[in-house]
């Protein structure tokens, strides 16, 4: 029985981890800056990373739908299986919805998103300051939700590795030999 994620799934997982961390760091830092060329650059980079996250999340969701995850270890209780399935689904949804909320917020605040400074994304919303402020709140709230879920997700993975001593973390780690099937 295959007990590891595919190399593609592993690569996409860790690439998204890296991009989400970068995006969060940029986002948290940039909002406190006063207007400067650096601020404009960071805002654009944040948006570019966000668009990239969205595209990779679409790719990842498609990959997951066509390449099922390896089964959980036999002794995993039913509630944990449910919790894992629900939290994974939510993580996918957030990776797709958060970039979209940022894009719509940008449009509503009257600043178009131009991917890499080259590809203009259409403004789906007309400029509307009140709506923009609402979308800002949505963007922030969704990100807090994502942060909480990521914490639970990582804690669960670590618990599997150090407490349960099973292969649940290892099957998503890059650069290690596949564990021998039990």
């Amino acid at each position, binding site marked *: 029985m295959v007990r590891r994620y595919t190399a593609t799934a592993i690569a996409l997982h860790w690439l998204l981890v890296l991009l989400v961390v970068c995006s969060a760091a940029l986002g948290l830092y940039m909002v406190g800056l006063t*207007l*400067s*060329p650096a601020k*404009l*650059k960071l*805002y*654009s980079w944040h948006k570019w990373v966000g668009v990239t996250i969205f595209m990779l999340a679409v790719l990842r969701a498609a990959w997951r739908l066509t390449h099922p995850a390896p089964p959980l270890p036999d002794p995993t209780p039913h509630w944990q299986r449910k919790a894992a399935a629900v939290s994974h689904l939510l993580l996918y949804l957030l990776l797709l919805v958060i970039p979209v909320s940022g894009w719509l917020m940008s449009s509503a*605040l*009257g*600043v*178009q*998103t*131009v991917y*890499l*400074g*080259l590809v*203009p994304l259409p403004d789906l919303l007309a*400029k509307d300051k009140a709506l923009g402020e609402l979308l800002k709140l949505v963007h922030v709230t969704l990100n807090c939700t994502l942060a909480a879920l990521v914490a639970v997700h990582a804690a669960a993975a670590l618990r599997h590795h150090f407490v349960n001593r099973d292969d649940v973390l290892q099957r998503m780690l890059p650069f290690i030999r596949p564990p021998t099937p039990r």
Partner: protein
Amino acid sequence: MKNLRPVSIAVCLGMSLPVQAQPILAIDPARSEVTFVARQMGVPAQGRFGRFTAQLAFDPARLAESRAQIEIELDSIDTGVAEADTEVKRRAWFDTSRFPTAKFVSSAVNHLGADRYEVAGKLTIKGRTRDIAAPFTVRRVNGATVFEGAFTLKRLEYGIGEGMWADTETVADEVQIRFELTGIAGK
């Protein structure tokens, strides 16, 4: 300005009008606009100036005597982003407390063909004067004359955005200016 009598306006314009002077048109603010498109990080940012005045004398048959003078109150800028509105009035940008207006004074009007013309003249912003030329079209609408055109200026030639803002990787040097001026008979 638009309430001044033609004679005073002629003095204002600093031109020696011929005996048969062309009627001086003032502009109808409700049907006139001066907008711009600047770019930051490749993102077009459209804005406008809310207050400006103009005196226009235009006769297709007597282009040599056609004139335009336009003054824009730079404090009336609307970039679409409140934070940017405050920033561009500061010293590094327009320095509106020392240089409250941008001023254009025409030197020549040429016919390009059909309803298309080109006005050349001197544009002064922030104490710096540069020659510009702007193609425009003319159309008559309900007794008013509508002048519509656009040109591109390089902001750094006028010192708009100095110091750290002179970096054109972030804010592009070229800024497109569009104008639509509805001229009505001045009082």
